[in-house]
């Protein structure tokens, strides 16, 4: 038994120590080292590029919104994408673009010119927490109650004083094209941008004829989700 154990020990030692010794002795070839070096260079270059991209994303940003609260060091804005925090300091420049009342005294804009509920654009750089460090604050005029733009895609089905456009939803939109110079003809597929007036007519500001045409698929009614009763006939 003693002999048996010593034999196993010797064989295990040979099997384990020899490969380990071989591995320790062997050095990576020049080819592997070159590849490693190339990989290192590639990683460093990619990291630098990534850093540059991140910096680009954080510099020269503009937060535009309504002032919700203000202190001597910060302004909180309600912007399109949510709440935005703007940091201000003694170097921040102020500009007032709101229309001046006749006879009003000329005042150099300052942080005191920024009132709650006023529209502002804060220009500067954003830090990694999303706070914009403002270099300039521009007080904007209140947005006019302008109607939102409408976009249409469809086929011209008639042209008279107004053009009729058959849309994807198989509805027909009346479009006034008096403000545009672009030539179009019947059956053209067009993209239109404009504003809907009170009579639901789209006053086109821009019209583009799709050169390659398009496909106006006929509207197919969706089949009912309830399956039809089926009769089963068994073989007799």
């Amino acid at each position, binding site marked *: 038994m003693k*002999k048996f154990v010593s034999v196993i020990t010797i064989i295990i030692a040979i099997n384990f120590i020899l490969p380990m010794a071989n591995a320790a002795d062997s050095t990576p070839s020049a080819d592997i080292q070159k590849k490693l070096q190339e990989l290192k260079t590639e990683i460093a270059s990619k990291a630098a590029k990534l850093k540059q991209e991140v910096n680009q994303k954080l510099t020269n940003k*503009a*937060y*535009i919104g309504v002032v919700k609260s203000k202190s001597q060091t910060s302004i909180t804005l309600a912007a399109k994408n949510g709440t935005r925090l703007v940091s201000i300091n003694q170097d921040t*420049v102020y500009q007032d673009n709101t229309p001046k009342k006749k006879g009003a005294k000329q005042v150099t804009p300052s942080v005191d010119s920024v009132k709650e509920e006023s529209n502002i654009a804060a220009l500067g750089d954003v830090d990694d927490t999303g706070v914009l460090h403002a270099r300039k604050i521009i007080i904007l005029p209140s947005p006019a109650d302008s109607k939102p733009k409408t976009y249409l895609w469809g086929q011209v089905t008639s042209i008279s004083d107004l053009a009729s456009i058959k*849309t994807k939803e198989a509805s027909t939109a009346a479009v006034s094209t008096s403000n545009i110079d672009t030539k179009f003809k019947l059956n053209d597929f067009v*993209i239109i941008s404009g504003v809907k007036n009170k009579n639901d007519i789209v006053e086109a500001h821009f019209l583009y004829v*799709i050169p390659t045409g398009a*496909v106006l698929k006929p509207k197919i009614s969706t089949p009912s989700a309830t399956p039809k009763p089926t009769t089963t006939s068994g073989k007799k």
Partner: protein
Amino acid sequence: MNKKLSTKAYASAMIFILILGLVSLGGLYYFLNFYSPSSKTNSSVENGPVTKEPTSLTLDLTSPDDEVLSFSQDLEISGKTSPGSEILISSTDNDMVISSKPDGAFTGDFNLSEGTNQIKIVVFDKNGDQKEIDRTIYYSKEKL
């Protein structure tokens, strides 16, 4: 140590090591294929049959980012969408249309107005399906 090994002892030792090796390999195989949690998630039976995702209109904008301050009047608009689509770029004062290339990529220079530009990028495919993305860009003529 100088004693000569008998053939029987040597053969028994080799067989023992072989069995030990096989058991270890078997254990490793079992662990990797049946026991390991990662192997379970890769099971095609649990994931169901392989199905192709329905192709739908996509719009990925590479440039510009949202809430950008631009000192240049021409703003590069680029991205990727379905091939052969028309992309309408529209702000309050300006509109333009560009077409996507066969690989779906598109690029174009959009003319900004001074101040705030609310830009809408709308893609229309051949069937009139549409997808849109909004961007707010502030154009300043003077550098800060």
